[in-house]
């Protein structure tokens, strides 16, 4: 019993320390923009690494997701004749939920984990100490460029993913159900969109902030060599996944409470 209580206490303290550390890192990152003083070359390097190298997996995931949504619902829709449900369902789920959340999770697995491993390796091999010894602030040099590139690129990748998911749905819809792509597209435009689209992009931006700050925090605070790096990557992936779902929930609540969702 005593051991159990000790473990609960230790875990609670660790969670609070982690939350505090992430919060502090976020505000220190924001403070680095006033005045904006960060490494431009490092920012471009990260924009390329994060964005250009991630788009193939995002496009592939989005295409398959859009197609699978139609395949899963085609039988039900055909049996009831409610073909109009397809563009409605696809548009809403892709733009408001599946697009940003799935791409956010893919992004956190690919980019966030890689970022934690990279910064963690820099920490255990004293590269971060070397920066500080050279009078360079690691937050301005390492964290801010990653923060900018992840926020910008996740936003763009989500917009790209939305397009390809709808394209996948549209093509599959044309192949499985007698519903022309033009009609599919027009129905989606008439039914909704701007609200869901904006909500999805808003989610992508908040996910980008969460993934960058959380992955940088776990990377910069690595202790204990290669084992520590592995543990940090694991913690980072779990924490970003939780953050994505919590932020998704909060954004949905905000949109509903504010009456910004007008679909239907």
């Amino acid at each position: 019993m005593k051991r159990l209580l000790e473990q609960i206490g230790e875990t609670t303290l660790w969670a609070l320390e982690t939350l505090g550390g992430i919060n502090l890192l976020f505000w220190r990152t924001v403070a680095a923009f006033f005045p904006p003083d960060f490494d431009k070359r490092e920012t471009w390097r990260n924009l390329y690494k994060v964005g250009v190298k991630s788009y193939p997996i995002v496009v592939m995931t989005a295409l398959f997701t859009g197609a699978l949504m139609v395949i899963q619902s085609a039988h039900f829709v055909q049996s009831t004749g409610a073909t109009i449900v397809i563009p409605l369902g696809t548009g809403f789920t892709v733009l408001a939920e599946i697009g940003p959340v799935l791409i956010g999770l893919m992004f956190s697995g690919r980019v966030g984990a890689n970022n934690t491993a990279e910064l963690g390796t820099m920490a255990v091999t004293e590269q971060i100490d070397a920066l500080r010894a050279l009078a360079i602030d690691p937050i301005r040099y390492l964290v801010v460029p990653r923060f900018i590139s992840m926020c910008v690129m996740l936003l763009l990748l989500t917009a790209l993913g939305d397009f390809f998911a709808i394209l996948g749905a549209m093509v599959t819809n044309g192949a499985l159900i007698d519903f022309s792509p033009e009609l599919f597209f027009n129905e989606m435009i008439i039914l909704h969109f701007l609200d869901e689209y904006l909500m999805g992009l808003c989610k992508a931006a908040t996910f980008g902030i969460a993934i960058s700050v959380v992955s940088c925090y776990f990377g910069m605070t690595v202790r204990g060599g290669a084992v520590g790096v592995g543990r940090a990557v694991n913690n980072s992936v779990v924490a970003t996944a939780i953050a994505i779902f919590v932020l998704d929930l909060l954004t949905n609540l905000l949109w509903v409470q504010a009456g910004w969702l007008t679909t239907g």
Partner: protein
Amino acid sequence: MLHPLDVDVPRGQILGLVGPGGVGKTLLLKMLCGLIRPDEGTVEIEEVDLNRLRGLKLAEMRKRFGVLFQNYALFDFMTVWENVAFPLIRADVCDEKTARARAVELLTHLGLQGSEALMPNQLSGGMKKRVSLARATIARPEILLCDDPTAGLDPVTSSKIFIMLKRVQQESGATTVVVTHDIDRLVQICDHYVMLYEGRVIFTGDHEQAMASEHPAVQKFFRG
């Protein structure tokens, strides 16, 4: 953990910070350049307490240091010349072209001609140490801190590193602190010694005084 201690580093000379592994040498070295703050006490550079400095003042103070890290600490996403020129480029000392020329010149001086475009993972341990030494000294620091510059190197390469270290120090006149337990080679370049043992300073003085010391740990360390 370090116990209360008092160490003076003579200006323009090489101080050997010696002692067995795990006694706090690296910890003390990192305190000397402000990477770790002591719980109590001061680290004074010309009567300025390093631990009271923040922000730009701390950054300005750190520009006076060059640090050679035990694990090289080379930036693995940069080439050799970019690593060496990095302190000059970041501090806006000169333009990139001039910084590159100075980096290549220094690398040649340290016997690394032709390796400018390589990545750190393509270098041997001895080469990494020399690149790290080049990066630590390219901005002509007033204070040079070297953490175990020969760790993991063979005896021949270790001797070369110490000779280069001495040459660089003589040319720059930097106040230098070398952490090592390679006492045989350190003797060839060092002026003064401070020996740490179980987190305390147990000896301060030159080589002759060390050889004459009656402290068993000092005797064992210096006489073998």
